[in-house]
């Protein structure tokens, strides 16, 4: 999903502010957790800043689909099932889940979200 510069700059500003990272560290391909060091508490801050920056509401389950990841109907032996992956794709069309699908360990899900995914999500919400 194409992301325009204005969206990226606002997302970058929110991430720089919330995570204390440098401007040049924030790139679309960077993962929020692995590359930018976001912790769970930071996501509350990031969501707040994005909601204000873009005048949107971000339901928690849009970015953190715990209702799927903690549902025994979609998780077996710590891995998301095919049905669960289909539901995730449907819920999160803005995210590139290809790496996660190759090895869908529930615990690794939060590490997948990239800056680009976040920008795509915001663009989707703004244009909805």
């Amino acid at each position, binding site marked *: 999903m194409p992301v325009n510069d204005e969206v990226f700059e606002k997302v970058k500003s929110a991430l720089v502010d919330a995570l204390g990272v440098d401007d040049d560290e924030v790139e679309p391909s960077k993962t929020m957790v692995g590359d930018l060091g976001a912790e769970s508490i*930071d996501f509350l*801050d990031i969501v*707040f800043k994005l909601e204000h920056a873009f005048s949107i509401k971000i339901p*928690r389950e849009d970015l953190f689909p715990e209702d799927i990841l903690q549902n025994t109907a979609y998780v077996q032996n710590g891995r998301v099932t095919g049905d669960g992956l289909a539901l995730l794709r449907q819920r999160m069309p803005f995210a590139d889940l290809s790496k996660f699908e190759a090895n869908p360990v529930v615990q690794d899900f939060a590490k997948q979200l990239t800056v680009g995914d976040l920008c795509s999500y915001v663009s989707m919400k703004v244009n909805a």
Partner: protein
Amino acid sequence: MRWFWIDRFTEFVSGQYATAVKNVTLAEEAVDEYVPSWPYLPASLVIEGMAQTGGLLVGQLSDFRQRVVLGKINRCQFHGQAFPGDTLHFRAQLTSLQANGAFVSGTVEKCGKPFCELELMFAFLTDERFDDVQLFEPAALCRMLRLLRMFEVGVNPDGSPISVPEQMVAAEKAVLLSSTP
């Protein structure tokens, strides 16, 4: 252990803002011993004072049923140090209330001059993960709020006084009855 880093509330408008006062004194160990021979209130305890002012402002909205914890210090700038004899005036403004947290913008004045500006984020510990966790025993928290005079100065946005939450009143009564011979 006592952990009061404000002395009392001076204003409290539910869901909007709270002000509190803190007198720095040499009688406090942290002031006297943090840096030997240079007594001052450590910056971290000034922040704690704002966390108490803002955290209680947030907690009161749920009658203190919500588990409110300081999640992040988003921004903080000091303009000096607070020494014994100084009076600090805290003002916490609730800027956003979310389903899983709240944001507070705070200012501190020292003897009438800007001393510190900060922004705090509070998180709510959810029932799903912390159902068996009680951060404060209700009677003890109620006593603390009474000492801080929250119920003396606290009002709702329409000016009516805030009330002591029912579960706290019940807990206080239970404590009194259990200690009566």
